[in-house]
């Protein structure tokens, strides 16, 4: 029996081509991991056993005849259950959508299939992607593979867990306030939120349309790049200007606000990451985002009414079928005045310019992905220093700004604290996701430690 190869997807596809192992063997490894681990971790809502085996067999036969469908030929990929797969329910982890059947694939799913990916199943999530813990789900809570009593982060909880535990080689999630990066950090995998609107949301259940992003969760930055290029329909592997670039990367740290509330172990791990980046030749400067502290209130007045608008009809007819916590937050959105929503959009413009300005002083922003270690399941609040704050507010603290502004951001694993994964976030210029990925690739080993 082979092991799940600990190599980038491009190497796996090459090895498949050389006959080192088959797609069928790869798929059986993932299915076997699902059988042995998912009863505890609860990462999947649906597993397409039969379809996956048939698709892997077809991929192997095509490969044997020298036909490679694309860069993801024969690779098992999981999907957050917010993305439509033709003929299958898109549950969004909610009883509200019982009986749903998608009539076509989401655009992202079509692009994955065209590149040869095999959709292994649909992953659990925080209901309707409206939460950061992965606990509120009609399918039950997902658990962190590094400590089963702790949250995996959300809302793309099952996606991160599926990749971290070898149940899929890669996954696709969505990110409205941090829902790709938060679970990536908590589970020790890579999570990329591309620039806003780069990846189409057609066929993806909306949460807050001006904030919603689709992106990959993977084991390496190279894999994130491969998936990103596939789902955004981009062909170039690397930003051409980066290929010739000699100078090292300058990292800008936005200290104020982001570092006001941070767990001591996370802070220590981040300082170690800085030392490793400097040892690798990177330069580190402090930068300022003057109104960063206004982020939560601007986010609240944007996300709540947009989500309430999306759910207005279902809240009238199926209110009792939502998880209570999600329903109450959706109802809260009805109380945001239109004038305050518009005001918040003006605030977004201010924040967007300030992040743009900060990026004039460095190549990428550098900050932790989460200010805390993954909390225990069932925690409402976490105390950091002398401050007790809600798990929701704390988990969104480092990530939600970049959903408001649309800047691309990636979370990379950067070691462990108290046996739990810690993530580091890099943020790049808008519409330069490839450049961000190039910087992340260059320093991936240093960030991992």
């Amino acid at each position: 029996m082979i092991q799940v190869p600990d190599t980038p997807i491009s190497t796996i596809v090459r090895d498949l081509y050389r006959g080192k192992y088959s797609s069928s063997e790869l798929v059986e490894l993932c299915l076997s991991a699902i059988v042995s681990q998912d009863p505890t971790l609860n990462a999947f809502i649906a597993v397409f056993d039969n379809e996956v085996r048939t698709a892997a067999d077809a991929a192997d036969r095509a490969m044997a005849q020298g036909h490679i469908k694309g860069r993801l030929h024969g690779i098992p990929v999981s999907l957050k259950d917010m993305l439509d797969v033709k003929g299958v329910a898109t549950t969004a982890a909610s009883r509200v959508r019982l009986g749903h059947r998608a009539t076509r694939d989401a655009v992202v799913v079509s692009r994955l299939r065209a590149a040869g990916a095999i959709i292994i199943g649909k992953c659990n999530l925080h209901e309707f992607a409206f939460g950061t813990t992965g606990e509120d789900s009609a399918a039950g809570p997902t658990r962190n593979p590094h400590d089963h009593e702790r949250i995996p982060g959300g809302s793309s909880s099952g996606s991160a867990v599926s990749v971290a535990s070898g149940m899929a080689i890669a996954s696709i999630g969505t990110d409205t306030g941090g829902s790709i990066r938060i679970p990536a950090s908590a589970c020790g995998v890579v999570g990329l939120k591309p620039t806003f609107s780069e990846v189409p949301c057609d066929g993806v259940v909306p949460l807050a349309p001006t904030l919603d992003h689709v992106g990959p969760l993977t084991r390496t930055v190279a894999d994130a790049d491969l998936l990103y290029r596939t789902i955004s329909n981009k062909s170039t592997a690397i930003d051409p200007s980066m290929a010739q670039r000699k100078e090292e990367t300058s990292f800008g740290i936005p200290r104020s606000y982001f570092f006001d509330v941070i767990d001591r172990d996370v802070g220590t791990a981040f300082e170690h990451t800085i030392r490793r980046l400097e040892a690798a030749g990177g330069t580190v400067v402090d930068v300022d985002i003057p109104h960063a502290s206004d982020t939560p209130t601007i986010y609240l007045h944007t996300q709540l009414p947009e989500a309430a608008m999306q759910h207005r009809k279902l809240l009238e007819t199926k209110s009792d079928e939502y998880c209570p916590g999600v329903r109450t937050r959706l109802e809260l959105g009805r109380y945001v005045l239109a004038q305050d929503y518009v005001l918040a959009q003006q605030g977004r413009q201010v924040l967007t310019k300030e992040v743009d300005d900060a990026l004039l002083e460095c190549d990428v922003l550098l900050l932790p992905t989460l200010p805390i270690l993954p909390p225990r399941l069932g925690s409402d609040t976490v105390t950091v220093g002398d401050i007790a704050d809600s798990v929701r507010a704390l988990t969104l603290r480092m990530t939600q700004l970049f959903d408001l502004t649309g800047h691309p951001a990636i979370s990379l694993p950067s070691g462990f604290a108290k046996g739990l994964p810690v993530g580091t976030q890099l943020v790049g210029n808008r519409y330069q996701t490839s450049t961000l990925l190039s910087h992340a690739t260059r320093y991936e080993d240093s960030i991992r430690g």
Partner: protein
Amino acid sequence: MQIENWFVHAKQDADRQDNLELQSLLEMLRVATSLLHDADWCTQVELQPSDPERHVATNETEQT
């Protein structure tokens, strides 16, 4: 309508539903809305156009 008046109505609505969590979240929203209104960029956007030559009429400042 003053924002405090709006939240009085909102809280009465939540009371009618007997939803304690919603009542608690409404208080959080009230505080957040006050912060939104107090933001210095909010004042700048409304009253101080970045180009001083540009005449920006607002309903609050125009006298007829």
